[in-house]
């Protein structure tokens, strides 16, 4: 197989050496056409696959959501029950009185703040209580995402 590949490579030899300057018109055009085609082919394959699993998941998601909700509730109940007897990780906010979080603030945000506080308390054996988190009127998520990237990602 590899012999075959080598032979082919010899035959075709369409690689361009980096220091070559007088590129023929065919070579140039071929680079352009190949390049654009390959980029399109690659991304079209991705479109097909992403669309495909997007559709599959749309169906799954709907039923999964319902399930997940039920499960989460059950788990929360179980956890609350187990809280007295079970070993708990320090930054697990579940066992502390739930902070008063304004509607619409994602749990991750609260967790992030809890994490930051817990890290400060690390090793102290104390646990901080988050009393409440307020958010300003939420803007559309994409704005803030772009804003964050603008500040963090001009690479």
């Amino acid at each position, binding site marked *: 197989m590899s012999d075959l590949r080598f032979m082919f490579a010899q035959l075709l030899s369409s690689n361009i*050496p980096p220091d070559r*300057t007088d590129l023929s018109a065919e070579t140039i055009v071929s680079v352009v056409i190949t390049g654009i085609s390959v980029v*399109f082919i690659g991304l079209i394959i*991705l479109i097909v696959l992403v669309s495909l*699993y997007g559709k599959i998941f749309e169906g799954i*998601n709907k039923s999964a959501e319902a399930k997940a909700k039920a499960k989460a509730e059950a788990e929360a109940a179980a956890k609350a029950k187990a809280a007295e007897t079970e070993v708990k990780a320090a930054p697990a906010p579940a066992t502390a009185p739930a902070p008063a979080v304004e509607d619409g603030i994602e749990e991750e945000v609260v967790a992030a703040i809890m994490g930051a506080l817990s890290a400060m308390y690390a090793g102290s054996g104390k646990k901080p209580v988050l009393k409440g988190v307020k958010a300003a009127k939420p803007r559309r*998520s994409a704005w803030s995402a*772009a804003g964050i990237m*603008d500040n963090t*990602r001009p690479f």
Partner: protein
Amino acid sequence: MAIIQSFWNTLTQLAQESGFAGFFADGGWKNIIMILISFVFMYLAVGRGFEPLLLLPISFGMLLTNLPNADMYHPEFWEYYEKFEEDAGTVNDHYIDYQRILEHGGLLDILYMGVKLQIYPPLIFLGIGAMTDFGPLIASPRSFLLGAAAQGGIFFTFVGAAVLNMSAADCASIAIIGGADGPTSIYVSSQLLTKHSACSVGTIALAAYTYMALVPIIQPPIMRALTTKKERSVVMGQLRPVSRLEKLIFPVLVTLIIALMIPSAAPLVGMLMFGNLLKESGCCDRLVKTAQNELMNIITIFLGVTVGATTQADKVISLDFGKVMLLGVVAFSLGTACGLLLGKLMYVLTKGKINPLIGSAGVSAVPMAARISQKVGQEEVPTNYLLMHAMGPNVAGVIGSAVAAGVLLAIVK
């Protein structure tokens, strides 16, 4: 008397070894010009806010490398030369002597190893992946097409450079500026450019970051010229929400498809998607935080200052630097135009459901290009929120550039 003689000798010697003496040596005046150019870029970075995170380190590296006799960077160490390899019985014509670099290299030579060993750009992509939300792209996969179209700028610029009779390595390195992606440009150019090339990694990076900073100036006129008022006024609906599982599968799928199609794109795409998978997993937060911040910052400092160090006076002070800057802006503009034109086509095909303005975001330059789409769209319909829709082509453009980079690396070698 002997003391005075000895003192005088030492002083003379120090004077001769000084950088001032270097200015009077052959071509020393070029260093002065380069230092002045570095001041211009420092001003652009600090005074005008042109991508300061990269342009400031690059311009300082440019200053350091052009201080005569400071020996912080040795271009001759990085020239490929020929070596007969006894074990293999063949001549390796891409030989770089790392033992020599470790023994005699200056600070910037040592740090530049991370560029030449091709590790800085993929690690920056790791951090970018850890910061990127591919949700808009997953919700609207056809955005990939716009991300692909905007890479047209890369390939058409290849033609332009070839017509100007530049070497294949130069053509590819200049063309990739059209990808509007710094790490990708550095990744490609540091692999292709040789001592015979007209450009250096630094000039390519300078051009790329300068034009990325100029996106708000370059793109809007092209956008207004190529679209009609009616097209720009299209209001697009909301994107569907994307589930966590879809976001988890996406990076794996993209790695698989792109790395299998274009193996030379694997390091960039692989690391981008690795970072994204870490982020979306939700269970590796400490790794994600470090990849986004400290690791990325350390590498940005090293990358910037060493890439700047490659801007040798000989490389920059020549007609070729002008060609790079000229072709760079052509590449950028063509990329913008290609994205817009495909956007127009999609406008027609979807019977007016797609606003062609989101096409220009396909050049990458995340997130600025997407914000330009938003802004130009709002000029027509103030309540039109295109940003979310433009983020799809925008992140698709990052993937598209990496693929285009892989293609160029596969063809030119």
